[in-house]
């Protein structure tokens, strides 16, 4: 109950902020931060709970974005439809990647997801309808009332998506599914012998995780008014989506949220104050620091602090 009240409050605050005169740049930056909240949360459903490291976040994100572009160009579909369709297509991709878990575990699964990313990027580079390698300029449709700028509206949409993603992750974690996924992460064979339908659960986790990543990618073309393969499939998405839950803590749904808010905000600040190149370095340095000094992330540090202060 407390959780749902918090969700409602956050959403109302997001809408109100979008309606009052705040510097437009705030929404540009906040959109990106929230986008990473969705990506990190989605990544954690498979990577954190089930222990399958997906290095192909960029692929799911970009396939979501391209699905939206195709629907927009072909049918002029509204944003809501674009997002749902993107979630569907990326969910299907997730299901396919899930089948890989039949044979591949650990590092081999991670490498396979990188391969999927390169494969799909090559397809998009060669697909003229969506602009190929040069990309495609998109004209934003008129903004929906009561918002007075498209970026402000996208900010609210992304806030909504983040809340949906967090709620899904929270549900998965607290349900019997979450316990099964944890069992898979600890020992797949013992899980199976304890009655856990491991393949079904892995396929479920891959599909849900992929769908949420796709949904996060759908508003991107409208945000930039442009789409192009190299930046859409960027490995930065994959690295960040992996680093943020690691830094926040993978055991609880709040971990990726903390990691994403922290890291993505730092990145935005660094991009503005120093340079765009340094912001990639920030991810790397923080990731290494946390892996060495606090392997259970901010959550682990917090728990340790709670215990020592008691």
């Amino acid at each position, binding site marked *: 109950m407390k959780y749902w009240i918090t969700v409602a409050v956050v959403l109302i605050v997001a809408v109100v902020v979008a309606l009052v005169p705040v510097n437009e740049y705030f929404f540009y930056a906040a959109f990106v931060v929230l986008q990473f909240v969705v990506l990190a949360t989605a990544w954690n459903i498979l990577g954190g709970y089930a222990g399958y490291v997906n290095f192909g976040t960029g692929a799911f994100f970009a396939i979501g974005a391209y699905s939206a572009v195709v629907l927009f160009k072909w049918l002029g579909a509204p944003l809501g439809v674009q997002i749902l369709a993107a979630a569907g297509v990326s969910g299907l991709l997730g299901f396919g990647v899930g089948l890989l878990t039949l044979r591949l575990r650990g590092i081999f699964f991670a490498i396979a997801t990188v391969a999927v990313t390169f494969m799909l990027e090559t397809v998009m580079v060669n697909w003229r309808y969506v602009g190929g390698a040069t990309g495609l300029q998109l004209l934003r449709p008129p903004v929906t009332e009561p918002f007075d700028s498209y970026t402000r509206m996208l900010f609210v949409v992304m806030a909504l998506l983040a809340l949906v993603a967090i709620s899904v992750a929270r549900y998965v974690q607290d349900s019997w599914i979450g*316990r*099964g996924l944890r069992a898979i992460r*600890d020992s797949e064979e013992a899980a*199976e012998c*304890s*009655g856990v339908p491991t393949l079904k659960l892995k396929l479920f986790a891959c599909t849900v995780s992929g769908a949420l990543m796709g949904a996060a990618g759908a508003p991107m073309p409208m945000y930039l008014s442009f789409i192009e393969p190299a930046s859409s499939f960027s490995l930065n998405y994959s690295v960040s989506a992996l680093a943020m839950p690691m830094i926040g803590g993978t055991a609880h749904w709040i971990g990726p949220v903390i990691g994403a808010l922290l890291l993505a905000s730092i990145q935005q600040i660094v991009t503005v104050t120093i340079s765009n190149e340094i912001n990639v370095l920030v991810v790397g340095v923080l990731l290494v620091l946390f892996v060495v000094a606090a392997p259970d992330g901010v959550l682990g540090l917090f728990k340790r602090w709670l215990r020592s202060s008691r």
Partner: protein
Amino acid sequence: MAALLQVSNVSKHFGGFTALAGVSLAIAEGERFGLIGPNGSGKTTLINCVSGSLRNETGSIVFNGEEVSRLPAYVRTRRGIARSFQIPRPFRTMSVLENLLVPSAYVAHLKDTDGEAEALDILRKIGLAEKAHAPSSALSQVELRKLELARAMAARPKLLISDEAMAGLSGAEVEEMLKILFALNQAGITIIMIEHIMQAVMRFSQRVVCLDAGRIICEGTPASIVQNPEVRKAYLGA
């Protein structure tokens, strides 16, 4: 009486290596059954085929009147075949109690509150109750073996396969494990014991089968097995 588990002509190869060559055996309900054999004789392969971790290439495995050899492992667990692992595989990020809640949720379909009551009951019987809330990564070797058995029990099995639950334990600890297994059998569970500790398996079993190079070389009461020249040859190579 129909057997609880009927294994007929089961074979399994790994590349050119024959792990099982047409093994057949029947186990009655409520029986205490011992499976022995030298290292590499196919004991673990056989129970992997029975529990579903591996698929047998030929033959059939009928459990409780149902052909199970093409069912995935988790379904077989739900039908009543539970096993412990030779090398303990605890869910190491979970507490001891949570380890048991996995089968309670997925096999017995219990809500956590009911599952916890049943799990604590099992832990009491197995003598692990005081560790219920300890992280499973902090257990000693004998406690890990007990956890393996306890987790298998939480799946409410008809047949429990104990894969070398006593290897590496001290004399007193072996006694303790034997007592647990006897008690479980008293409660109506059929038990297959795979063991290298002869004294334990001979005392426990009503019937023993000896495997060598993927074949059954003899079958009988513990007393007759130790006298069997083929068994001596398989173990001692003489």
